[in-house]
């Protein structure tokens, strides 16, 4: 275990050094990725001047959701980039996974250490910044419970997205190419969660409640933190399902990943 960790850090260290080689290019890259977060939010802020609110949520309340999703997705993208289905599918296609499998080190550790995209820091920092401003501006009645619950919400989100990445990566053992449906859940899911999810109607909301229970990861916890009433009349414990969903998805993903590894057949390239 200890050895796995030290190996992981060394793999990450290599990535860090290589990515910091071209300083200007790296700087522009970080700036570029953080700009995406800020400008998307600026669009929302401008539009709110015209519209006032969305389904009763003010701009700063939406900022709470947006900052949380962006920062959590950014952290996940940093830690789990080795499993990014698009990237991982390519490794499978090119037979690079075979190389890794031949090494006498745990494959999962190697995949975790295979990719560490430092420019994601831009997204994380901007997300946290927006979250901090939102928390400063919304009038939250803080209690001990809420304070302790905040990092739980955050970690659950990271686990949830990470789990989706792992599932997406595992699917490529059979398909050899990332399937678009996974993008819909990861990128589409993060987009959906940055708005109050009661705005989605019919099958769309039911799907993200009962099949992919994304609604419990941020919308319900946010209702609890911000003391907002629940228009959907879910049971009172709904906000506290977030760790169950987050860690549950990651756990299932790990099981599925190990199952996939057992059934992996090389493309022969």
């Amino acid at each position: 275990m200890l050895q796995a960790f030290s190996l992981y850090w060394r793999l990450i260290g290599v990535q860090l050094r290589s990515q910091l080689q071209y300083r200007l290019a790296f700087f522009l890259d970080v700036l570029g990725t953080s700009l995406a977060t800020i400008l998307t939010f600026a669009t929302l802020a401008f539009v709110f001047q015209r519209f006032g609110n969305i389904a009763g949520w003010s701009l700063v309340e939406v900022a709470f959701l947006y900052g949380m999703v962006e920062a959590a997705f950014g952290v996940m993208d940093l830690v789990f980039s080795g499993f990014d289905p698009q990237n991982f599918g390519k490794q499978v296609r090119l037979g690079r996974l075979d190389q890794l499998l031949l090494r006498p080190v745990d494959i999962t550790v190697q995949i975790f250490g295979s990719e560490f995209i430092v420019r994601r820091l831009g997204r994380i920092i901007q997300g946290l910044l927006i979250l901090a401003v939102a928390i400063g501006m919304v009038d939250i009645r803080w209690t001990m419970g809420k304070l302790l619950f905040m990092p739980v919400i955050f970690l659950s989100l990271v686990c949830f997205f990470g789990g989706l990445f792992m599932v997406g990566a595992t699917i490529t053992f059979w398909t050899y190419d990332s399937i678009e449906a996974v993008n819909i859940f990861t990128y589409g899911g993060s987009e959906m969660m940055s708005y109050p999810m009661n705005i989605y109607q019919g099958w769309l909301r039911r799907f993200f409640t009962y099949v992919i229970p994304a609604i419990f990861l941020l919308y319900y916890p946010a209702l609890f933190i911000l003391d907002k009433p629940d228009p959907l009349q879910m049971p009172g414990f709904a906000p506290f399902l977030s760790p169950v969903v987050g860690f549950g998805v990651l756990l299932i993903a790990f099981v599925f990943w190990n199952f996939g590894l057992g059934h992996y057949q090389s493309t022969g390239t």
Partner: protein
Amino acid sequence: MRLFYEFSLRSFQRQLIYRTAALAGLVTNFFFGIIRIAVLVALYGARHEVAGIPIEGAITFTGLSQAMIGILSLFSWYELMNNVYTGAISADLLKPMSLYQYWISHDFGRAFGQLILRGLPMMIAYAVFFGISTPQNFWQWTGFVISLILAWAVSFSWRFLVNLAAFWIPNAAGFVRFAFILSWFMSGFLMPLRYFPDWFIKLCALTPFPYMINTVVEIYLGVVQGTAVIQALLAQIFWLAGLILTGEFALRIGIRKLVILGG
């Protein structure tokens, strides 16, 4: 013209090979379209019209802008940059036409392929599932089509220009991504520019971005009408010319620095 046609055709045929990829892209674009509709409907609430755009127009806007992702290659286009780095640009430069002409003919085929495979099916899906508004008369349709072609040309010239950064920066991917993100924000892709504060609309008008998407959307929705349509088209032509000239100028300076290693 003959060469333009041949290069376009090759590039168009190449698009047709990746039909599954196009279908997957279409599904994703459509899904994001559904989310964007939900957001706009919730923002409108009980209001029927905001900033001159009725709710049907707002829904149509999400369809149009999602349909344009493929046509304008709105999320990424690094082909020219990559060719500079791999040295493949030496072959591009040997073509019996200028680098800009070669790449724009290539991109025309790509854009047309995306229009057929993703743009039109998207609008049809929107028309079936959500109901969209359409231009009211022949002149509005004509204005829309001309504006769409000009928007593509402006977008291409912009992508060509920023890709030229590869001559100066050892890894220009970040710079190009930066340029793309800026274009989402200021082109009216994320939201119609009319919803924005006046000072910001004026600021955007000083950049080439609104002429890539916002102009097309406003002409399609009939938000601009009469002589204003002609004015909008002229503005697109003005920016197209400006970007082409800047691109040629940058290319001339950049090409002197170009060193291609053999092997």
